[in-house]
């Protein structure tokens, strides 16, 4: 048993990779630092580690239980913790910030050692695979050869699939939630609207706005587009309908008079304070490039996953229109055709793509059973 983590100060840890990172597009990043958080204890044979891959604008703070006090709840607080679906009494849980993001891991807002100023758009375009190779280097650093499970939803689910394709020997099991094996034209379209919103903000300055005024309006509108894709027709109808905000009659002007407008404005404004516009450009681009199929069979990974009987769980949500059930089923179909041990469940939910982040007894049950699979034998 390891030392008692509970006595350590809570919060992020940092690891700087040894040597440059060669990206999928051939470019090199001379120095990459990865920020991460952990919960629970790594067992003696290092076999109980679970990596959680966060979604597009998430961060390493999946749960706030590590520190005694003053910890904000994590984005997956309902799922990660003692006795929860991902039980930190049993598992050593790791969540790291993705490459290209703005939460501590190297990204466009990091300092470029060559110029001494933030990279901005001099930062090379990264892919989902690049994010995953940085995570793999972190696992090396933590001495974890094989993960008990890799778990993620949405863009995090893409990382899970990339782990399966690029490091099949290191994946003990895999959980992909509300995701896709290739970004659809619809998803690319939404992302492009978000990017153009940022790029057309006069404060964007070709991405070199650090130190000056931020492209806040562009980023805020980009986030509004994002939030539309995270909800659903049904969710918007029940949450807002045509209700007006703070008034009983139409004002016949362009203020945010419908509740749904007010909600989007609020989400947009809130986002500007915590997220970097360039990071959104890079991460949406990485998602758009994502297509797991080319090379998946050819590199032997599918065969390897089948032979090692690496269990996989795919979960979709009925009202998700960003990564609808049929796209999740495509992952299942690919795995089935190659003899990979795959389970699939479509959860009835009215709240759209966001459902995978909301408290769900169903998902808790699924994860508890799936992660403990070998104990059932």
């Amino acid at each position, binding site marked *: 048993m390891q030392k008692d983590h509970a006595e350590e100060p809570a919060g992020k840890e940092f690891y700087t990779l040894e040597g440059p990172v060669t990206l999928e597009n051939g470019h090199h990043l001379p120095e990459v630092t990865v920020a991460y958080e952990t919960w629970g204890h790594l067992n003696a044979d290092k076999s109980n580690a679970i990596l959680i891959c966060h979604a597009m604008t998430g961060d390493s703070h999946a749960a706030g239980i590590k520190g005694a006090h003053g910890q904000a709840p994590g984005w997956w607080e309902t799922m990660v913790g003692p006795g929860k679906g991902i039980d930190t009494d049993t598992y050593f849980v790791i969540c790291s910030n993705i490459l290209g993001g703005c939460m501590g891991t190297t990204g466009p807002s990091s300092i470029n050692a060559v110029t001494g100023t933030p990279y901005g758009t001099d930062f090379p375009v990264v892919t989902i695979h690049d994010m995953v190779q940085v995570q793999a280097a972190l696992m090396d650093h933590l001495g974890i050869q094989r993960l008990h499970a890799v778990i993620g939803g949405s863009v995090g689910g893409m990382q899970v699939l990339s782990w399966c394709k690029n490091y099949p020997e290191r994946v003990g099991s895999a959980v992909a939630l509300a995701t896709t094996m290739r970004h659809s034209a619809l998803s690319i379209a939404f992302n492009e609207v978000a990017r153009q919103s940022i790029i057309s903000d006069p404060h964007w300055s070709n991405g070199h706005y650090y130190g000056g005024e931020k492209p806040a309006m562009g980023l805020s509108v980009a986030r509004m587009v994002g939030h539309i894709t995270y909800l659903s027709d049904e969710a918007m109808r029940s949450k807002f309908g045509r209700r007006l905000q703070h008034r009983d009659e139409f004002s016949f002007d362009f203020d945010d008079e419908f509740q749904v407008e007010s909600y989007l404005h609020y989400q947009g404004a809130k986002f500007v304070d915590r997220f970097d516009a360039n990071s959104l450009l890079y991460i949406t681009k990485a998602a758009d490039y994502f297509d797991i199929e080319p090379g998946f069979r050819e590199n032997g990974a599918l065969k390897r996953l089948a032979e090692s009987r690496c269990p996989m769980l795919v979960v979709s949500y009925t009202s998700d229109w960003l990564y609808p059930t049929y796209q999740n089923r495509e992952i299942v*179909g690919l795995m*089935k055709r190659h*003899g990979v*041990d795959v389970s699939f*469940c*479509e959860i*009835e939910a009215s709240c759209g793509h966001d459902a995978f982040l909301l408290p769900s007894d169903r998902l808790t*049950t699924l994860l508890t*059973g799936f992660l403990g699979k070998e104990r*059932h034998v």
Partner: protein
Amino acid sequence: MSDASPPLRYDLSIIESWITPGSRVLGLGCGDGELLAALKHRKQVVETGIEIDEALVARCIQRGLTVVQGDINEEVKDYPDGFFDYVICSQTLQQAYDPKAIIGEMLRVGKCAVVSFPNFCHWRIRFQMMASGHVPRTRELPFEWYDTPNIRVLSLKDFRRFAKEVGFTILKEAAINTQDMGNSGTEVRLLPNIRATYGIYLIGR
């Protein structure tokens, strides 16, 4: 943790006895996974189930089984030829829209298949129909004509004729008499098409 040893329903225990230990098994319409769990724990099979109901799928995954949610007609299609040693369709054939296609797919993805169904020519059904003038409702098929999921009914004789017409081989047959889906029952050797409540068949290409 393990739900290894609850007594298995009589018809399922017959199926269990036919399965070679360590084999690869696909269960179509596997429900809450009772049979697959028993096979996994007692016969060490490598199991996969297909089930359409979300709550039942969740129950299966909760007990550590590999299960895909979906329609059996569609979900069976992706598996490679001969991938499974056994494909089991227990008490579901009478609900299948296209039994011929299902059996075809079962024998494509499986080296052999197990099919079981309620016998609609049991004497009690014949008698009920003659005496009452109503479409029979039995313990095995306890529905009204307007709410039954069982869109077709068949007898043991019908299935044997079906095998000849479609061109698959019956490798083993068990005609059984069991009540209320209980744990006890008997095999029926004399006049099975009249006296058995269920038929169970092991079939091959």
